[in-house]
């Protein structure tokens, strides 16, 4: 009996070996994740969270939307789609809102001090305002969520989760007032990160937002949207011109604060030397110039493979780096853009910069589809003959020379070859083909060089998806801004200027010109400051036309154009003749009299020439308001285009 008792005891002991949860709690746990406790217990943890907050900014760095406008084009095809970056990512919004709560948790734990807490809160508010700015410009009024909604989730009706859309005006006002709060909290200068938001970043963004809201108010009804739409009736997609002045005033106020701070100036300043201007305007985009940098992003992450592949994608075919599966030469600049750059009249004063190709002045005549047996080409047109391909561009704005590659330009030790055709005596001109012609002892080629490696444009254009044409411009102009002037790079580390001082000046000038408020004299002065940096010595008047012209030129390829068109409701309007279309100039080697000369034929850009009607695009005006995602599930009023 004693024995049996002993064994019974042994059994109970044996079965009890793995006493419930102790075994599981003794494990190391989940090593693939950090706990919330880890994140909020140190400043480094909070900065790791903040890093993700910053990554949520819908900034269109280098991935520029200008390629969808008439000013530039992808080389392999023409895109005209109406498109501005929007924001409908409430997951990101939740993590920003969550971070806003966590800054106080970290402060309580003394993981960060009060100053850091204020700065981090200001940064989060800044980023959140940036996101809602992107949301309102794309969708009109959106649901404004300013805290994590966990408390409203009950698994059943979840009522608190169905946040309604605010009106468009409320949303704009929200963004502007949040930026006031952010400007209050953010420091004027930062020694803990040159790319973190400052008070001036908040004010700079505010000036942009206010100008945007003002333009939308003023031009919202430019082409009337019928009011029977629910979203219009509820003012979710509704602004009116009476709102405009307040916003212009807010823009002027924000600009004034920055301009009066004395912290910023245009890099390089006024000069009368075109070459000095060109040098300054190149340098500005190669490295961060603190005096002009208000907010932006760094691509210099210290790693061998930095994330910016701008240089490799957009370097011309004649001077590029190669990476596996990479492309290059994929940024063509149209003649519509090139014509906008003014000429110097000889005394440094402004002169119309439209490239002179004909003696009869008919610069608005474009040949279309001349690839087809040259049938649409007018052989008797009075073309201007030039000795060298670069001759038509010699007197252009320093900004053109610093930012645009053109035929005959010197770049990275090469002379850019971008020739679109050849014309010998007694024959039809040949376009887009690299046909050789021997005149005298010299053999000339249709595209300017024997080998494809020695040219930058037009090679194998239209040859289908598998050919190499994507590596060659479909125009004779390519982008130069942001490219390293000396060598091709696999990964460039140039910073991106999201908000630079020049924008503040032009925002100011536009707000004053549009509203008549503010200091008109100062507005004229700052408008001309920008021109003076580009070696213009004269002054232009403060007119809306002059301001917008300057904006297009100064911010060439920086992605401002599509937003300008969008906010001013001009995206679908036609600016050249009756056409919204991309054009280029085709440099043709003219050998008709035996000696090489160059003529320039204005043509529709090869891509897109086939599909577009002569009247341009027919995009629905309602597309200024994007479709509300999942409006059924979200129980939201749909936008007009969805009704």
């Amino acid at each position: 009996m004693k024995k049996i008792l002993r064994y019974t005891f042994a059994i109970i002991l044996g079965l009890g070996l793995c006493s419930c949860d102790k075994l599981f709690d003794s494990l190391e746990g989940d090593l693939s994740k950090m706990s919330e406790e880890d994140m909020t217990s140190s400043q480094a943890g909070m900065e790791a969270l903040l890093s993700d907050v910053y990554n949520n900014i819908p900034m269109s760095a280098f991935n520029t939307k200008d390629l969808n406008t008439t000013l530039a084009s992808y080389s392999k095809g023409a895109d005209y789609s109406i498109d501005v970056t929007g924001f409908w990512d409430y997951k990101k919004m939740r993590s920003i809102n969550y971070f806003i709560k966590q800054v106080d948790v970290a402060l309580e734990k003394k993981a960060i001090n009060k100053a850091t807490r204020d700065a981090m809160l200001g940064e989060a508010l800044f980023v959140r305002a940036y996101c809602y700015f992107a949301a309102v410009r794309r969708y009109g009024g959106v649901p404004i969520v300013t805290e994590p909604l966990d408390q409203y989730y009950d698994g059943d009706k979840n009522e608190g989760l169905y946040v309604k859309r605010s009106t468009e005006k409320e949303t704009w006002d929200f963004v502007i007032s949040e930026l006031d709060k952010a400007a209050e909290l953010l420091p004027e200068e930062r020694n803990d990160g040159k790319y973190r938001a400052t008070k001036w970043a908040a004010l700079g963004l505010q000036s942009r937002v206010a100008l945007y809201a003002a333009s939308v108010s003023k031009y919202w009804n430019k082409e009337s949207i019928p009011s029977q739409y629910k979203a219009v009736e509820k003012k979710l997609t509704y602004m009116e011109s009476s709102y405009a002045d307040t916003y212009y005033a807010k823009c002027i106020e924000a600009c004034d604060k920055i301009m009066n701070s004395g912290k910023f100036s245009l890099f390089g300043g006024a000069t009368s030397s075109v070459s000095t201007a060109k040098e300054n305007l190149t340098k500005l985009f190669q490295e961060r110039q603190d005096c002009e940098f208000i907010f932006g992003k760094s691509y210099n992450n210290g790693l061998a493979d930095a994330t910016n592949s701008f240089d490799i994608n957009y370097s011309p075919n004649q001077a590029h780096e190669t990476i596996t599966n990479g492309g290059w030469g994929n940024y063509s600049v149209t003649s519509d853009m090139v014509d906008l750059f003014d000429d110097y009249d000889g005394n440094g004063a402004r002169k119309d910069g439209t490239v002179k190709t004909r003696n009869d002045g008919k610069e608005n005549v474009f040949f279309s589809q001349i690839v087809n047996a040259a049938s649409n080409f007018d052989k008797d047109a009075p073309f201007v003959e030039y000795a060298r391909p670069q001759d038509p561009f010699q007197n252009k704005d320093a900004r053109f020379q610093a930012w645009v590659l053109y035929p005959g330009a010197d770049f990275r030790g090469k002379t850019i070859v971008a020739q679109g055709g050849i014309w010998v005596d007694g024959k039809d001109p040949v376009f887009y083909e690299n046909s050789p012609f021997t005149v005298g002892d010299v053999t000339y080629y249709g595209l300017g060089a024997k080998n494809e490696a020695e040219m930058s444009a037009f090679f194998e254009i239209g040859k289908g998806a598998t050919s190499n044409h994507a590596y060659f411009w479909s125009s004779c102009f390519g982008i130069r801004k942001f490219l390293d002037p000396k060598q091709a790079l696999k990964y460039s580390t140039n910073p991106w200027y999201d908000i630079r001082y020049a924008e503040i000046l032009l925002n100011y000038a536009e707000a004053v010109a549009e509203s008549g408020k503010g200091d008109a004299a100062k507005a004229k002065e700052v408008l001309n400051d920008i021109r003076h940096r580009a070696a213009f010595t004269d002054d232009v008047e403060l007119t809306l036309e002059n301001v917008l012209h300057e904006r297009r030129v100064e911010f060439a390829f920086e992605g401002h154009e599509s937003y300008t068109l969008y906010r001013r409701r001009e995206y679908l309007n036609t600016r050249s003749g009756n056409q919204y279309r991309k054009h280029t100039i085709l440099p043709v080697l003219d050998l008709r009299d035996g000696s090489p000369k160059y003529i320039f034929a204005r043509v529709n850009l090869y891509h897109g020439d086939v599909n577009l009607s002569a009247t341009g695009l027919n995009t629905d005006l309602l597309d200024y308001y994007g479709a509300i995602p999942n409006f059924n599930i979200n129980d939201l009023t749909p936008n007009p285009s969805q009704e």
Partner: protein
Amino acid sequence: MKKLLFQRLLPLLLCMLFSIPVVFGQNQVSVKGTIVDQDGQPVIGAAIMVKGTTNGVTTDLDGNFSFVVPAGSVLEISSIGYATQEVTAAPTLNIMMREDVTQLEETVVVGYGTQRKTSLTSAISNIRSEELTATKQTDVLASLQGKVPGLLIRQRTGDAGDFNTDLKLRGYDEPLVIVDGLVRTAPRRSQENNTSYSNSSSAVLAQLNPEDIESISVLKDASAAIYGMGAENGVIIVTTKQGSIGAPTVKYSNRFSFGFPTALPDEVDIVTWFKAANEMNANVGKEPRYTQDLIDHYINGDEGWTDNKWYSQFYRKYSFQQNHQVSLNGGNNQTQYYLSVSFNDDNGILNGPQLGYKSLSWQGNVTTNVTKDLKIVYQSSLSWNDRTSTPQNAAQNFYTRGLYSERYVPWNVPSNPTHWSYNSGNESRNAIGALNGANGYDKTKNNTFTNSLTATYTAPFLKGLKFQGQVSYDFQNRETRQLTLAFPLYDWQTDEYVSSNKDENAITERWNKRQTLYGKFQVNYSTTFGKHTLGAMAATEATLGWAGDLRGDRKFGDFYTHDTLSAADVNSQENRGTRSSSAKAGYIGRINYEYDGKYMAEVMARYDGSYFYAPGYRWAFFPSYSLAWRVSQEEFFQNLFPWMTNLKLRWSDGISGGNQGAAYQYLLGYNKTSSGYVFNDGSQVSGYNSTKVAQTLISWTRTYMRDFGFDWEINRGIIGGSVDWFWREQTGKSATMSNTVPDMYGIDLPNLNLDATENVGIDLELSHRMRFNDFNYRITATATFSRERDTYQEAERSAIYTSSQDYFEKHTEGRWDNALEGKYYEWNGKGQFTDWKDIFDYPVLYSASSSKKSNMTEMVPGMYKIDDRNGDGVITSIDRYYSWKEGNPPLQFGLMLFFEYKNFDLSATFNGAALTHKNMQMSGGMGYGWSKTLFVNHLDHYKLADGYTDPRDPQSVWVPGYWPALAPATGAEDATSNATYRFVQPYSWVNNSFFRLKSLEIGYAIPKSVLSKVHLKSVRIHASATNLLTICNPIVKVWDPETYQSSRRGASGAPLLRTFVIGTSISF
């Protein structure tokens, strides 16, 4: 009357067939007799042999026999199920045979113990060593094929060391594999992907040596639930051989195997291909693909122009594999041992000199009685596997690259054979260069070391009480080194450099380590009183696991010297490491009760805990029970059907648990994001975010299993079989709560135990065995029909179907798996288009946006007129009909034959599947569209009667064939837009049923009389072949029907092999 006559004639016939002519001599005695069993019933087919000779007869249906034997000779009387007897010859012999207790008492290994076979209450199949090794297959998986009803084994690829075989029980996912009481997994190569391994149970079986196995039990129903986690898919219990008392026996066996691809497509000659390619372009109004100049080179037989079949070049003429094994078995009363070592070398079918697989393994089992009551068993195994293959990039592109290569381009430059040639068709990937090592290699070494110590204490004070403790430690180590090299490609005519292949010079080293510690304490008690038999078992067990890996990557740039990490560029280095640990524990209890050998009941339960879940959700209770009734033991039954020696009805019902999804979902955690943010130039701050809410509610899945079956047997196994109906519902599968919250909430809803899947099916087994004197045979046929459907799909709760078509495509809940996921139904054809006019006149459009004109560009003569089922004039997906799916066929079957005559044996195993289709994917590798070759069977296609001058002329006359007119597919390099193959057409969606002679083996054991002179115990010589014969749709035969369809256009992985094996086993 007629029946009677037959009854009397049959034994006579049998005797005539099988009796050996009697040798008459001096002192002959005529013997006549009857043989009955204990109940006085005649024993049919019992063998009466003159001992030491081959003389003998068998009994007839009445148990009678008669023959003439030398006087005084000893007769040996044997029959299956009875104990063998010896008697001295006498004129009249009436013999009663007794049931062979050892056979009836045959025990079967079940979970945490053994049971008498007759007392089983569940669907458990048992395979003993003799049956398993009857055929000398390379691995256990192959040996099991066709032998167990419900066990579906299907080979996917045939490359050396792949272990890429699917193992399914009743159509569920992989079952658990228990080796000597422990759950084991082994690395298995993921298909078409060189560097990724996953741990699987099928690979354990594939890597075990069949010779080392004592028995295998397959637990198919709720009886598996006793193993807890993972047992919902069934359990396969493997027991290895223990030493036996006696003088040491050494056994050596070897096997030499030659493998040939079962199917390699037969490519047409190059001129036919050129013409076909030009015909293909002409059919859609395009310029010829190949110039007449090029074609003329071949027609004229110009020097330097060769036909290069890249695809065929990938494979050796044959693969060669050899296997050697030595085992030592013996012991005394105190200690017994079984030790074995085996070596395996397989060069594989891929045609590269350095490629192949080698393994060396060891198994050692030692049993010792420490005291009278205490027994200790130590078991250990070690295995070293070493595999060399091509690096990942090369392998991923192999098969297709082969078919896309232009055939007029040789693989190396003829004037300089050390230079690999550039081929525009294969995207700068000269796969033959890669096979020969120019592209680098992938070397993987897997080492596994297992150890188990079991102590069993038999209580001296209470009969039937036993205590057992077991501790085991497994260690698994894997080293992978992958070297990728860029290599130059040259123009095959000029030997000028064209380009490099697309890879960078890079090296990756990866070390992976897993350890498992297991402990168990168990008490067994069994007792018999009167007619009652009672058994009880209680156990507790816990498993702890640790895994970790370390990986380093570097690139070489252009300067490659040798293959170590340190030799590569330090600036490009990347490294990473992970670590994880796991734990599970359980309490187990079981009670068996049996009354009078007739009624049996079993109740068992587990209380299981897993580290996966939040405290409070970790533990779950999984009970089950089973009942059985041996009807054949009832008196009334024995009176009614005396010949039915066994009939047992079984019922089982239970719940098993499983883990799903990821561990630690209950913890809110932050993951590192892919990108960081730069706050200051030159340094990056990594970002962390969390997009989910913590989820505490998720817990175990529950799988309900039911099985109703009966086993029957006539005349002690002459004919027998079993039938099982089974049902299973797996509930609580992890699914994201359906989208009922708005975007504004901003999180992904957590996963909960929501979804459910149901399986229903039936298993059948029919067997027959017989012995006539020296001739002995067994036949077993098995079949399984199993289907699956989703009974609950959370995602469909909130789904909004925009149209009936949308519903048809997306709603799968409640639909049986032949129609699941929208991809298992296809369009019906209503005859083929005979010519262009026919296409033009067809009133139905092939897409909503198309026009009649686009029908012309999308279809070619010979394609099927897709049936516009709903009559709306446009073919959409709703016009499809249900069809059997690809892969995992619902009906699978097997047949095993075994014959033994004297010292010869012959066995054959067949397997097959039905109710399944295969998509031959015409747009790629089958010679249509963008490949650079055409297979001979495709020559039977629609073509123009008068060449191809103007194919689009409606007046043209087309000659019909099986396949449609040749036409380039969408995406073809020289096609514009052509949706020719947008629809899966009846000619390529074909029945994939097959029946194949999986293995055939003949063996001969050298007679003992001969062996004793050379002091050998036994010598057996065998020859065998696998995949010898296949009956299937001839269209599918181009690829093997047993391989799965995959995205790789019918050609994925290395082909299956037809092997020819010779081998010997010697014991002394």
